[in-house]
Structure formats: C-alpha cells, structure tokens
C-alpha cells in the first residue's frame, strides 16, 4: 500500500490550484445565482408572459343566436355552426393552382378566387358559410395558408312562411329585418372567451380545475304567429293574387280577444334563407308591407264612421238617410254610389256600402268628433307591434279638413292606413270596443325554451261602448248575408261580421284617381257572435275584377274555413246547408269509410243518387237547409257495422290534434 506523503500536497502549486478551483466553483455558483436572480426576479414578468404565450391559448366558446319559435313551439329561425374559408395570402405558394382546386370545390370562377388570394398578404375571406361537403373537401386538400373558421348560419326551416315577420340576419349574424332586428339584443349570442393550454404540437389540453365551458344558446323569442294559419293565409293569398294578376296583396289574421297576430304576410313572399350577398338599398327585400305601406281603405272605413256616430248618439241603427239616388254634389265635387239608392237605414248604408250615406253621416258628425274617433281607433299612430319599419299611416290634421275631405274620409278616401291598423281597429269592435295594441311576440325564453318574460299589450283604452260595438257588429253581419256586398266571405257553418272595400288608387304621375286601378279589401271577424279571428285581406290592383266582395272576400272565407276548425272553433250555424253532393250524418255514427270513401264506393250505397239529387235541387238557404238535413238523414242511414263502434272513436277532436301535424 502506497504511503501517505503530506509534503507532496503541501507545496505552493497544490494550494494555488486548490484556491483557483475553489474560486472557479464559487464564481460559477455566483454566476448561476445571478442568472437565476435575473430570470426569476428582474425578468420574471417577461418570461412568465413568454411562457404563457407559448402554452396558453384562447378559444371562443360558441354562443348560438337565440331561437325564434311560433306559438306552438315550431322552430322558425335557428342557428347552426357552419365553416368559413379564409386564407393568408403570404403563405399561399401557388395561387393559380390553389384557385383552380378551390374553384372546383366552391363552384366559383377560378379567376375570382385567385384575385382574392393575391389581393393581400394578410387575412382574406375566400368564402363564408360553406356547406358541410365543401368544408370536408377543403380539409382534405391540406393546403398551407388555407384555413377553416367556425361561424354560425341562420336557417329558416319553414322558408317563406312568416318570412317577412321573422326577418333575417346579415352574414355576421346581426338582425336586419323583422323580429330578428327588433329582438336583436335578446337573440344575439355573446361568445365567451376561455383559456386553454396547447403543447408544442399545438394540440389542446385542458388542465384547469373546472370543467370546460359548454356552448350556450342565447335567449329565444316565442312569437304569436301560428305557422299553420300563416301557411293557409299565404296559400289563399297567393291563389287570389295570381288569379287576379295583382300587383301585391296582404293578409293579417289576429286573435280577436288578445290582439295577438296569428298570421301576417304580404305577397310576393320572401324566403329569408335566400339573401343576396350585396343588398340593393332600394330593394324591398323582406319588407313587411302589412305594416309599412299605407293605402286608402275604401268602404271598410265606413264601420268606424258608423261606430263613432252611433257611440255619440248622432244616429240610430234604424234611422233613415236619403242617398240621393246615386249622385250627391258637394261644392264642386260629386260623390257617387255604384248602385243608386234612395232612402236607406243606417244598417243598409253599411250593408249596401253607400258612399253618399257615409258622406252625409260624416258631415253630420263633424270633423272634430270624427277625427277623434279615427285616432282612438288607432289610425294615424303606431300600433306598437314589436316589428321594425311600422308606418303610422296618413291622417291629415283635423284643422286642415275641408268639407269634401270630411265627406270622403267617411268612405275611406283621403286617408292612408296599414293592413295591421285596420285589422287592429276591427279587433276593437270585435272586442266590445276595447282597444289593445297588436302583439307579435308573446314570450322571451331561456336557452331551454322556458319563459322568462311575458310580453303583453300595454295600450288599452275604451274606444266605443259595448252596446255600440254590438250594433256595429250586427250591421257588419248583414254585409255577409244575402244581398250584402260580402256574401262570399262567409265560410260554411260560421257567421261573419265584415265589410268590403273597393278603393280607387291614386296615380302618382297624374295625381288623380286612376280609372282602372283599385285596392280590394275585405275585413271582418268570425264567428260574429263570439269573435275568435279578425282577418283583413287587401289585394292591390287586381285585374279582371275589382270589388272587395269578389276578390278579397273569398280569401277571407277560405282562411277562416281552415283556421277555425284548426283552432277548435266548431261551426255555429245550426242548420246551414251543405254544398251540392255533400252528405250529412251524425258525428257519433259516421264511420271512417263514410268520411274517406271513394266516389265509386259511395255511389254503390243505397240512396246515394237520390240524396245527391235532393241536395242539388234544394237551394242553399237557411229555410230549406233543415229539409235537406232531414232528407239526407233519411236516405243516408249510418251503416250497421259502424253503429256498434264506440261513438268516441269517430268523434271530432280538432282541439286535441298533435301540434305541427296537419
């Protein structure tokens, strides 16, 4: 074993090396400490920010725009994620090649895409809101510089049904028209930013103590519209507008008791799913003409005149007025009736729609009182409906009325009203004289569809007495009865109180009434004795026919005939005669074979032909209808097999029908 020799290590070289080594170690340690101090203390915030920037990333938690429902809970407007394509021009290596590839996928000219790709070295949208197929194909391309972003597209599943009421949003999701605009603050989603970690490969990972935030939906709106009634109204309106080659047409259907708008449409219709990228400011796309356009209401306005006159006790229902045998001179102007009349009662003035009678009543009433009633019925002011672009109408200040203005306003000239205003005013009469503001939205809903706020009409006032409203209602019922101008408006089995109107249209170039342009109007409520629906039909400039009782009244009838059973309102006229060839039976004993049987099957049944003859021979009047019923019952006994069935099996249950299934 080697001996220990202390001297060997005690020389100066040893000590110098040792000191140097110690110094280096201490210096190294000091350098480490200094560097650590610099990193951890002096530059702490910088490096923390740098680390966070590398690891942390922000992402947006989707917040969908609120849903719009109809009164039955059907979805009218809904947001769905849709991807959009954007590019960073500086990262695109071969723009022409990529443009050609994208052109094939996007069905757009390659030149347009290439122009976008080369226009800027920075961010540029190539196409927004791609279809799912397009997004998938673009993902497969895996081209550097091309990226997909999540956006939200608004869909309107019922297309044009209620399109003008629901409105639409722009590509950034902001409401532009209709309910989408008026309830934009409620509906618009508020995306929430959240922090997340990403690794070196930009792969996300969630290491927070709380759960990742879930996508949320903003508050929704439940409208008072009923999609079925809206659809029926649109179908009937379109038929009439096309039949008479009209310029435009409008319908408003309102609940008589609550002033809720059940349907509101104007033809031509509008599909909010199809919005051009660049909208012409002059374009009337999506404009709701039922609230934004005023027209002269014509004779329909006589009911408001009569309401005022009766309410003021200036006239009574059976008072007579001389109608000048069709021509009445007032100063230098001449007022004429379509059919000359002599003496007419107040009821007959409404029934036969005498302009001269109305003019005389207006002159008797005076401009001050008449003007007050016009304003009380809501003309010349907004109804307060929660829709953008409502027009308050055109009502001249009362002080500027000349006698001829007063007279012509009596039969609906020299005044401009909207379809909604006239519907609302008729609803006042249907509601016993109590005014209510029109309502289009009934509830604000949370994301789960539960109501968090109810919207009710706040404008309520009494316009006319209940007794007056009943008298006017009785007069309006005469209009739709035999001899009245609106017989075509009465659906089978229901009583209708209404008024026709045929207004001449002012020619904008000549500033005179055009001889060949009319506005055909029918407005009223049904059933007359217990009003449920108030319907106003306006057809602008129909060709071939012009009378409101011919053009607009059938639309009223057809809408009421389909909407009333849907709402559970059963026919109220007990002995109304059915049309020719229509068989009658007791509700409890009618079998499904009877209800849906083919013509051949029906013809084979005993007594069918005789019943057919009887029904066709009998006129469709109230007096004879009872006989028809009895005869039909005689020749059309219920089949024995069906008699054994439970009566409930075939009983009508219109009110219990499943929502949304027609």
């Amino acid at each position: 074993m080697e001996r220990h020799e202390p001297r060997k290590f005690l020389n100066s070289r040893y000590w110098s090396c040792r000191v140097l080594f110690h110094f280096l170690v201490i210096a190294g340690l000091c350098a480490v400490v200094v560097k650590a101090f610099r990193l951890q203390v002096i530059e702490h915030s910088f490096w923390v920010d740098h680390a966070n920037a590398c690891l942390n990333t922000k992402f947006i938690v989707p917040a969908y725009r609120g849903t719009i429902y109809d009164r039955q809970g059907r979805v009218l407007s809904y947001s769905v994620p849709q991807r959009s394509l954007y590019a960073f021009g500086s990262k695109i290596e071969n723009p022409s090649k990529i443009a050609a590839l994208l052109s094939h996928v996007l069905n757009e000219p390659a030149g347009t895409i290439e122009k976008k790709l080369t226009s800027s070295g920075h961010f540029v949208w190539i196409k927004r809101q791609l279809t799912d197929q397009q997004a998938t194909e673009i993902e497969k391309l895996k081209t550097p510089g091309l990226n997909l972003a999540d956006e939200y597209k608004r869909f309107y599943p019922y297309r044009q049904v209620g399109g003008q009421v629901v409105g639409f949003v722009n590509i950034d999701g902001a409401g532009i028209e209709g309910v989408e605009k008026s309830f934009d603050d409620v509906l618009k989603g508020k995306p929430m930013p959240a922090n997340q970690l990403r690794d070196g490969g930009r792969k996300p990972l969630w290491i927070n103590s709380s759960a990742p935030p879930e996508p949320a939906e903003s508050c929704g709106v439940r409208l008072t519209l009923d999609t079925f009634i809206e659809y029926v109204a649109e179908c009937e309106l379109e038929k009439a507008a096309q039949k008479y080659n009209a310029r435009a047409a409008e319908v408003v259907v309102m609940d008589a008791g609550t002033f809720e708008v059940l349907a509101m449409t104007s033809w031509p219709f509008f599909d909010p799913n199809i919005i051009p990228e660049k909208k012409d400011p002059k374009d009337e796309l999506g404009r709701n003409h039922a609230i934004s356009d005023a027209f002269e209401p014509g004779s329909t306005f006589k009911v408001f005149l009569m309401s005022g006159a009766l309410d003021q006790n200036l006239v009574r229902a059976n008072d007579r007025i001389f109608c000048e045998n069709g021509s009445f001179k007032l100063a230098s102007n001449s007022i004429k009736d379509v059919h000359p009349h002599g003496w007419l009662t107040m009821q007959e003035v409404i029934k036969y729609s005498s302009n001269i009678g109305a003019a005389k009543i207006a002159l008797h009433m005076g401009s001050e009182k008449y003007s007050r009633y016009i304003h009380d019925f809501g003309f010349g002011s907004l109804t307060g409906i929660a829709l953008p672009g409502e027009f308050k109408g055109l009502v001249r200040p009362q002080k500027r009325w000349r006698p001829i203005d007063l007279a012509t306003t009596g039969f609906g000239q020299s005044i401009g009203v909207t379809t909604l205003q006239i519907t609302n005013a008729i609803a006042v009469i249907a509601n016993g004289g109590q005014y209510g503001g029109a309502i289009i939205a009934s509830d604000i809903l949370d994301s789960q569809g539960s109501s968090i706020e109810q919207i009710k009409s706040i404008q309520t006032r009494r316009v006319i007495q209940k007794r007056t409203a009943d008298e006017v209602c009785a007069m309006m019922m005469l209009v739709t009865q035999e001899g009245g101008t609106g017989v075509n408006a009465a659906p089978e089995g229901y009583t209708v109180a209404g008024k026709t109107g045929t207004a001449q249209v002012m020619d904008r170039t000549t500033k005179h009434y055009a001889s060949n342009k009319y506005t055909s109007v029918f407005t009223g409520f049904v059933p007359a004795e217990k009003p449920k629906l108030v319907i106003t039909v306006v057809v602008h400039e129909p060709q071939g026919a012009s009378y409101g009782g011919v053009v607009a009244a059938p639309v009223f009838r057809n809408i009421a005939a389909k909407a009333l059973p849907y709402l559970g309102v059963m026919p109220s006229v007990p002995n109304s005669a059915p049309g020719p060839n229509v068989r009658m039976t007791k509700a409890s004993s009618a079998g499904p074979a009877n209800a849906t049987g083919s013509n051949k099957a029906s013809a084979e049944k005993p007594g069918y032909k005789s019943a057919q003859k009887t029904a066709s021979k009998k006129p469709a009047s109230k007096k004879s209808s009872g006989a028809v019923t009895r005869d039909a019952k005689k020749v059309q006994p219920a089949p024995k097999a069906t008699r054994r069935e439970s009566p409930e099996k075939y009983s009508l249950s219109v009110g219990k029908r499943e929502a949304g299934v027609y």
Partner: protein
Amino acid sequence: MRRAKENASILSMKPESDFNFQHKHSTPVRMWAWLASAIFLGAVFVTCAVFYVWLYVQQVQNGYRLSKSYEESELYSTVQRKLTIEWSRFRDPQRLGEIGQNQFGLAPPRPDQKVVMR
C-alpha cells in the same frame, strides 16, 4: 443499581473507556445505520418523485382526453342542431303537402266525398 450503571456504556454500545472498541466497532455500525436511513429516505423520495411524475403525466393525459371529449361534445352539439333543422323541415306544411300530393296521390276531397257531421 451500581451494576446497571457499570453496564450502561456496554448496553448503549458506546463504551467511553474502551477507545479501541469505539474505533473498531462503532463507526461501521453507525455508518450502516446512517446508510440504511439514507437509502430508505432516498427510496421514499424517489418513490414520491416517481409518483408525482406519474400523477403529472396522468393529469396531462386527462387534459388531452378532456380536450378531445370537449371537441367531441361540440361536434355532437353541432350534429344535434343540424338534426333539429332537418326535423323542422319535415314539419313544413308546404313540404308535407307536396309529399302528400306527389308521393301518396292525396288531394282535397271532392264534394261527394265529404260528410258533414252534425
């Protein structure tokens, strides 16, 4: 008592009087005792460190899983919203009318097919 005091140094393995015994026997024993303690503590420390690292790895793995699940749930939410649109389209009365007429040959009833129920 006196005997116990005499044996105390032997029992405590620290014989103060026997210098050789102290040098020859106490150092290795103490060393092994310290070594054993150090190894034990080291093992505990390493185990804790490994466990800590394992936990951290698990946390990261779960972070990835959570993130993936979140993306999946978002995807399902998107699909559900698209299906809601499809369902609403099926309830469109116009579409139902077209299907009824074109596919099933349905039409409004003729007057002779109608039965008025009283």
